[in-house]
């Protein structure tokens, strides 16, 4: 931590002004898709469509913080009865826990690109650590909004039972769920 503080202080001294910039999650280019195996044959996918969040990001200081919340009642698999089942107490129990939240504050950089974001995923009222690995990361000047946009593709694999989501484990429905995350955030 002292090393990190020292490095931050150093970058503050060299790259002035270095301050965290605020970004707002672009909901039109931010989605989470889950993947879970189906009878060892194919992969079922579903998508979370409603979300909001903010990012503070300082490339010079190599720090950041992201907070993003997903409305679990807006789950979309393309199969209406499955959407319903996923919202029931067997899975997300949205009557009691309508949203999931990720708070990430451990940004790991590779050069000036974010390589990894560690944080906490809260689901079903339980908060556990997860690390999102970047498959892609980039910042660009968006010609439509005329602002800098930063984002990328991230992924992680979680064990749903850790959050108490156990339905079907005894019938061979896998515990491991891969999360694919597209995220873009617009500089304010």
């Amino acid at each position, binding site marked *: 931590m002292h090393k990190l503080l020292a490095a931050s202080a150093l970058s503050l001294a060299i790259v002035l002004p270095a301050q965290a910039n605020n970004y707002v999650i672009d909901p039109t280019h931010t989605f989470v898709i889950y993947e879970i195996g189906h*009878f060892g044959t*194919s992969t079922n996918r579903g998508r979370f469509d409603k979300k909001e969040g903010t990012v503070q990001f300082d490339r010079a200081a190599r720090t950041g913080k992201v907070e993003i919340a997903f409305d679990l009642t807006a789950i979309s698999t*393309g199969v209406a009865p499955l959407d319903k089942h996923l919202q029931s107490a067997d899975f997300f129990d949205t009557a009691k826990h309508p949203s999931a939240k990720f708070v990430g504050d451990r940004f790991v950089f590779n050069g000036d690109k974010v390589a990894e974001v560690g944080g906490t995923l809260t689901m079903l009222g339980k908060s556990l650590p997860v690390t999102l690995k970047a498959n892609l990361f*980039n910042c*660009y000047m968006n*010609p439509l909004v005329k602002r800098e946009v930063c984002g990328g593709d991230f992924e992680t694999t979680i064990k749903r039972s850790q959050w108490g989501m156990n339905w079907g484990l005894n019938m061979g429905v896998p515990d491991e769920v891969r999360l694919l995350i597209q995220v873009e955030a617009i500089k304010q």
Partner: protein
Amino acid sequence: MTRLGAWAALALLLPPAAADPVVYRLDPAHSFVHFEVLHFGTSTLRGRFGVPEGLVELDRAAGRGYAWVRIDTARVDTGLPAFDARLRQPDLLASDAHPQATFVASSFSFDGDQVRAVRGEFTLRGIGQGLELRALRFGCHRHPQLQREVCGGDFEGELRRADFGASFGMPFVANRVRLVLQVEGIRQ
């Protein structure tokens, strides 16, 4: 195409004397075409189409297979209704003029009794182009409720949307489109 029409189309593809042909009807609850395209070199846009109708015949002993799959282009689902509407426009999916896209394949390669790759013709916006789908996994299981064999897997392929005349938004949104298919077929 009507259901009868689909069977007729399949029948046209079939050789007169297949050794041990088994026909599978794709299960719309476990068959989806997902697409992935890079957005501003930064993150991956994803969307999906359901598969309302698809028939596959496998003759594993003879190492042959035939497939006919239909998607309805107006049913594109990205999670953003405004984006879906934009995709249906004449310069992208052209859903009014070309409501259906089809994949017709009669070149299957096997590894033992596992399907490894399927080559055929994909028709989008009325333009047919060769497309190869490679199996990421393939398997069969006995469905506990249906009490029937279900075969399927995950397949991936790649196309260039400009080859089909759907070039709006390039190069900000990439030409290269990755297709990821979940397919499961119920033995008839």
